[in-house]
């Protein structure tokens, strides 16, 4: 079981922040427990891998607001137990922060989650938090990031500064976990470019503003890149493994959305300098929604996006020249039913990915989601080749309280 030493310090911090407020606090407790079943279409590439898996996740949030909601503390631990994968069995403090708003200023200190960006398929400019990859290979689940944040809303836009004093390593599936890379990632040999390793102090700045139909963001990040380079190496037993190498990076990014009628036009891109090399990545596309189709309450949304990397096809980035298409159906019923089907095509390697997600509420407190992810036609030279035998179907039943 992997655990984070942040947990203890965050809890202590939260207790401190709470105690400092003298008045009796109204603490709101919420959360969910979510069992999960996974079935894999094919046998795995490793003998330890199985065709099915069971797992359970839980998250609890403790929230307290006072001073007319201008000060608050939120502590939100997350845990998962996984039947097969010791790396996926993990605990993380998603949030543990004290925050305060004063007029047009906001301050936060502690562990928090921050999202930057506008697109749907890949989140290129989102850099503050590390990806909790064992949770989902779509990269949308994040680990809590220790930070000090200051933000101010002015007439000419919103400015935010982040000081990030501690680095979180990306999580990877173990040899028995699925989906996983064919060569296991050996985190005991993790390397850093900076001598300070995890204690390198990173920082980031963001400017955001709305101009009529335009929502524009500019970002700067300097510090340990959240995405590691995976270098081939040997473990203590002489087996071939991948060793994460976390480089120092400087990155300038922008994200832009135009909202016009039922059309959303989106663009994200960054310029990055890392280990003496500069490169660009960008993504953009459209989202269009047909509302109330055939005079029913149903909406059908279309998403089409393109992802580009100026390095061309490369082993570090599976999305260097890819098209993503998706269809979302929402009947707008009382159960909040939604179905999302998508496909990715790698224009360089012709590798295909399909996904389908269906979800709805049962009763007041149960939320069920069924998800399928399938890979096809993935050649050996594609970075996603490891996942090509890991197509799976997954059922999650969340009970909220």
């Amino acid at each position, binding site marked *: 079981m992997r655990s984070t030493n942040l947990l203890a310090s965050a809890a202590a911090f939260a207790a401190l922040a709470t105690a400092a407020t003298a008045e009796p606090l109204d603490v709101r407790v919420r959360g*969910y427990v979510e069992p999960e079943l996974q079935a894999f279409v094919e046998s795995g590439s490793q003998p330890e891998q199985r065709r099915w898996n069971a797992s359970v996740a839980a998250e609890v949030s403790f929230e307290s607001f006072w001073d007319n909601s201008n000060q608050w503390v939120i502590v939100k631990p997350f845990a998962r137990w996984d039947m097969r994968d010791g790396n996926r069995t993990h605990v993380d403090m998603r949030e543990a922060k004290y925050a305060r708003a004063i007029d047009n200023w906001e301050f936060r200190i502690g562990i928090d989650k921050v*999202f930057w960006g506008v697109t749907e398929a890949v989140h290129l400019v989102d850099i503050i938090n590390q990806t909790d990859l064992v949770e989902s290979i779509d990269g949308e689940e994040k680990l809590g990031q220790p930070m000090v944040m200051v933000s101010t809303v002015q007439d000419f836009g919103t400015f935010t500064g982040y000081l990030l004093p501690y680095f979180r390593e990306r999580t990877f599936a173990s040899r028995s976990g699925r989906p996983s890379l064919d060569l296991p990632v050996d985190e005991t040999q993790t390397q850093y470019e900076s001598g300070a390793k995890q204690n390198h102090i990173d920082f980031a700045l963001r400017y955001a503003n709305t101009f009529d139909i335009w929502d524009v963001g500019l970002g700067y990040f300097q510090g340990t890149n959240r995405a590691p380079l995976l270098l081939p190496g040997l473990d203590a037993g002489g087996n071939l493994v991948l060793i994460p190498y976390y480089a120092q990076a400087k990155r300038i990014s922008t994200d832009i959305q135009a909202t016009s009628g039922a059309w959303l036009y989106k663009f994200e891109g960054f310029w990055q300098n890392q280990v003496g090399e500069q490169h660009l990545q960008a993504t953009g596309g459209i989202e269009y*929604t047909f*509302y109330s189709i055939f005079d029913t309450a149903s909406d059908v949304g279309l998403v089409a996006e393109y992802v580009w990397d100026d390095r061309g096809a490369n082993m570090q980035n599976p999305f260097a020249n890819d098209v993503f298409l998706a269809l979302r159906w929402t009947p707008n019923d009382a159960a909040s039913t939604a179905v999302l089907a998508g496909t990715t095509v790698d224009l360089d390697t012709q590798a295909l990915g399909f996904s389908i997600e269906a979800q709805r509420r049962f009763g*007041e*407190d149960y939320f069920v989601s069924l998800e399928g992810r399938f890979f096809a036609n993935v050649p050996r030279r594609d970075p996603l080749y490891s996942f090509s035998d890991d197509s799976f179907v997954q059922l999650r039943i969340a009970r909220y309280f």
Partner: protein
Amino acid sequence: MRIRFLIGSAAFAFAAATMTLSAGAEPVALPDEPETKGRAIAEETDRRNKGFGDTRASMRMILENAYGETSTRELRSMTLEKPNPDEGDWTLNVFDRPRDVEGTALLTHARILDPDDQWMYLPAVKRVKRISSVNKSGPFMGSEFAFEDFSSTEVGKYSYKWLRDEACPEPVADRTCHVTERFPLYEHSGYTRQIAWTDTTDYQPRKLEYYDRKNELLKTLALTDYNLHQEKFWRAHDLYMQNVVTGKSTRLTWESYEFGTGLSQNDFSTNALQRAR
């Protein structure tokens, strides 16, 4: 020129500074011609809600289908009045129930003629997403209320026609109501027209009928349990929407209305959206 309706807004108000029900009964001079008379009634309703400043309130919706099965929605709503008549009001709604959408928040900067600016906050991924506001006729949270039933209803968003005066619907059948047709002028409405029963004593709406794109009766709304706030502003605390086609209904109730809570523009930014509680 705003007639605020339902959200953040259940606003139809009232300028008389006394608590008695007859207070607003001073006669309002209305023109004779049905179109201008209908508009004048809407303007009077709007005038009586001017100066409310800002409000906070909690809302609960009970959704019921034709088989009597129910589900519950709860949210908290904040509204900031924009006194400039060229600007629409700002609202921020935070959802509490169902639990799986708890913390989801919706920020709306209403406009007069252009589409509103709207942002949605998704707490699980901490994402603020600008969303399209053309979805006027879609159901709000799966209820029988459409988004347009909630949006800031400017006087200029409709054309009007006064039809007749008659007894108000229950429970105020002893009063007289102006019955007015109104026709949406904004794009993407799901309605050809609405018929409003406006109480002649306080200029508050008591009932609304909604006619769909085929001009057939779709829904009726009964507004009851009016409370006077700040000795000046009427708010209906019980809104019962019945879909006459599907047999589904939604009862929407407002609780703990507060006026003048000191909200400012800072509380309606995309930053505030992420911390809203």
